[in-house]
């Protein structure tokens, strides 16, 4: 028998935003690829299981499939920190190249195999932002004593600069920021942040998102369920996945900039971290990275592989580097 015709998917993001909409898009692509034979039924976060329990529930077979941001599982599979939120990591294009032409997907799957989970990387979100701040960051010293909601490796980087990084549940971030219980928060891409209303409670919107250069989202499928599908179906899943990724990469960046312009109109000040600050952050990252690689061989191996691969891409683009394009002006008709 062939696998389920309608796969129940527990999403970790609302399908009303861009991140969760990826799952809906994948479902459409999958229907196209399979001639309508297979589709996804995407459940809102918490509808089947709480967002943070998706990986574990797919592994146990309690649910068939999930739609996730990979970084959520860093507590369980530390290597996912690299795929979800890698500070000072390579560009989305270089990352994608590593996933499909390098070792990226294979290394991830090896880790997931221990838990009986099949992973299909299907979606990449553009680089996140540097976060919402109610305090100006003019020098690295301004991080000292700053209280910020941020998790993962980025948090470790900030800790070294004296910031107090905190865990505030999604439901209380807005209020915590409004009342000053935290001075800053990172959340997601502008499109998603804007919907959270952070522009009403924070003054500055900082760039770049140094803590997360590209973040991967995937379709998780219980291995036993996956194995029920024929090879042809499996290939169709892959096709649908790649097509969804392409859609995400095409759709996302312009939309973010449009959103940023709208936010600016509402009075948000868009800022860039000074170079001095970015240098300090990167220095701190180097130390965190060293520690992480010492403690975690799987992470070290993947990181080396990714950097080596990204190096090739960088070299290519350096060779091909062009001067900035002269924009159109009035004279052009």
């Amino acid at each position, binding site marked *: 028998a062939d696998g389920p015709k309608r796969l129940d998917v527990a999403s970790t993001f609302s399908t009303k935003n861009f991140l969760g909409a990826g799952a809906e898009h994948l479902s459409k692509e999958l229907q196209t690829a399979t001639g309508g034979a297979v589709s996804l039924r995407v459940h809102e976060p918490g509808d089947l299981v709480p967002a943070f329990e998706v990986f574990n529930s797919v592994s146990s077979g309690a649910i068939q499939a999930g739609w996730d941001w990979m970084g959520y599982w*860093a507590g369980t599979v530390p290597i996912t920190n690299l795929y979800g939120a890698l500070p000072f990591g390579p560009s989305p294009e270089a990352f994608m190249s590593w996933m499909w032409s390098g070792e990226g997907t294979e290394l991830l799957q090896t880790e997931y195999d221990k838990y009986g989970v099949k992973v299909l990387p299907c979606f990449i979100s553009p680089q996140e932002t540097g976060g919402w701040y109610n305090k100006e960051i003019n020098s690295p010293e301004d991080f000292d004593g700053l209280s910020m909601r941020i998790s993962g490796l980025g948090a470790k980087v900030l800790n070294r600069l004296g910031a107090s990084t905190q865990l505030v549940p999604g439901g209380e971030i807005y209020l915590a920021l409004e009342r000053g219980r935290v001075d800053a928060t990172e959340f997601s891409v502008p499109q998603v942040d804007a919907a959270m209303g952070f522009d009403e409670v924070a003054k500055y919107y900082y760039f770049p998102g140094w803590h997360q250069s590209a973040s991967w989202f995937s379709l998780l499928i219980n291995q036993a369920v996956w194995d029920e599908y024929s090879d042809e179906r499996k290939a169709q899943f892959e096709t649908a996945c790649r097509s969804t990724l392409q859609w995400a990469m095409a759709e996302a960046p312009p939309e973010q900039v449009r959103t940023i312009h709208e936010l600016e109109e509402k009075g948000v000040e868009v800022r860039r971290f000074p170079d001095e600050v970015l240098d300090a952050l990167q220095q701190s990252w180097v130390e965190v990275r060293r520690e992480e690689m010492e403690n975690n061989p799987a992470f070290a191996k993947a990181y080396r592989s990714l950097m080596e691969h990204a190096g090739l891409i960088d070299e290519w683009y350096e060779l091909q580097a062009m001067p900035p394009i002269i924009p159109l002006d009035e004279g052009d008709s």
Partner: protein
Amino acid sequence: MSRATLAPWRERGAAVCAALGRPLVGLGLVVGRISSWLLLLVMLAVLTTVLLNALGVNEIGRWDTKILLFGDALTINSITELQWHLFGILTLLGGTYALHHDTHVRVDLVYHRLSLQGRAIVDVIGHLLLLIPFCLLIAWLSKHFVTMSYISNEQSNYGGLTDRYLIKAMLPIGLVFLAVGALGQVFAKLAVILDPRSGASGSSVDEGATHG
């Protein structure tokens, strides 16, 4: 049914059931009384977090060897997570404690018109058919959830507590504990069914006059 005289087998049966139920119910009560104090620890942990945040302190201490639950550092996030760890234990064990005190809410429209035996029958059927299967099945199915946390060495993603399997294991433990408590109640209620006089003093235990 006549209440004046009872067949001797019923009296004996009631005594046996009561004797079987007593230690199980007693255990739930003792544990519940002790775990109640976790409330003050929860409060203390929250207040500590507020204080540390106000002072802008993130890391309280760091050491070299990893210790259970706390890993190698104590941060504001360790304390934040400690809050819900303690809260989880308080809640799960409190469930059994509340069972023995009959605090779990009932819609007593019909129930309060029933005789002592009638009420005992409702509870015995309910515990055997609903509560005990619920507890045991969900506890059994949580096995994967705990072992996975254990083998993956799951920990906080915010630099908080390590050994997440400890609190995850509390879920099946708490549910099995509740099932044991429910079994104790079944015996206690059977004693009432067999010999209503044995229930005159109340089969749901009270801890003296201070209650209420």
